[in-house]
C-alpha cells in the first residue's frame, strides 16, 4: 500500500539555470547532483522542510524515451507555460512574494485572496508555473 510520495518530476530546459532558480532563488536544498556521463546529470532538490521529497529537475533532451520530435514538442509546451507542476505553501505569502520578486522570480498572478487563503502564481526559468499559497489554517 502506498505510504508516501518520494520523487516527483519537473521537466526543465536547462539544468544549470534550473539549479540557480530552485536553489538560489527559491531556497530549495540540493538532494543529489550526480554526473551521469557527457551532457547528462541527475539533479534533485527538496523543499526546505521536506527533505525526503525529491523534485527531479528532468532535462528535456534527446536520449531514452525522448526522441527528436518529443524533445521539440515538450520544449514548445514548456515554454508556452502548459505545465503547472505543484502547489507550494509558505507561512507568509507577502514576504515570500516580495523576496522572490527581489530575486527576479517572474509572477503571473500577484498575491490574491482566495476562499482558502492567499495565492500567487510564478514561473520557473523554463516556463513551468506553480501556485504559491498561504492557507487559512
Amino acid at each position: 500500500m502506498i505510504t508516501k510520495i518520494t520523487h516527483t518530476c519537473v521537466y526543465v530546459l536547462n539544468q544549470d539555470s534550473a539549479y540557480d532558480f530552485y536553489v538560489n532563488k527559491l531556497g530549495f536544498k540540493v538532494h543529489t547532483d550526480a554526473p551521469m556521463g557527457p551532457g547528462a546529470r541527475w539533479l534533485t532538490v527538496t523543499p526546505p522542510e521536506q527533505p525526503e521529497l525529491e523534485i527531479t529537475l528532468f532535462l528535456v533532451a534527446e536520449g531514452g524515451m525522448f526522441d527528436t520530435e518529443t524533445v521539440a514538442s515538450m520544449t514548445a509546451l514548456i515554454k508556452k507555460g502548459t505545465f503547472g507542476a505543484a502547489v507550494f505553501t509558505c507561512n507568509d505569502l507577502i514576504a515570500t512574494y516580495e523576496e522572490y520578486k527581489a530575486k527576479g522570480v517572474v509572477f503571473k498572478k500577484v498575491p490574491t485572496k482566495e476562499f482558502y487563503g492567499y495565492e500567487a502564481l510564478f514561473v520557473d526559468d523554463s516556463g513551468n508555473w506553480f501556485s504559491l499559497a498561504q492557507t487559512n489554517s
Partner: protein
Amino acid sequence: MCKMEPFEKVYLYQRIVRAKLFIDQHFAEAIDLDNIADQAHFSKFHFIRLFKSIYGRTPNNYLIKVRIEKAKNLLTVGNSITDTSLSVGFDSPTSFAGLFKKVTGQTPSAFRKAQVERSTAIMANPLGFVPNCFAETHGWIK
C-alpha cells in the same frame, strides 16, 4: 502567522524582507542587528517582533540558521572545520562546533565525514542514486 492585513502593510513587509536579504548576503560578517533595525527604520523591539512574526524566529536566530546552513555546504565539499567556521562568521572553531552540534545534532566532523562519504559513493556509482524508472527513461540503462 502574521495577523497584519497584508496588502495594506506591504511597505512594512518590504523593509523586513530587505533586512532578511541583507542577513542572507552578509552572514559571514560581524552583523550588527541593531544597525539592521536602524537601516530598516524600525526600533529594535519592533524590528524583532515583525521579523519573528514573518519568519518564525528572531533575526539573531535566523542569522545562526543561515550560518549553519552555509557551514553544511562547505563541510559537504570537504572544507576543514576551522576554515568553515571562519568562512561563516564565527571567531572560534570551538564555539562554531558547539553551536553546530546543538543545531544539527551532529558534530561538524561527523557531518563532514558522512557527506564526503556520500559524495564519494555518488561519484563511484551514480546510478545507485537514481530510481530505475528514471534511469530507463533517460536511457542510462536498458
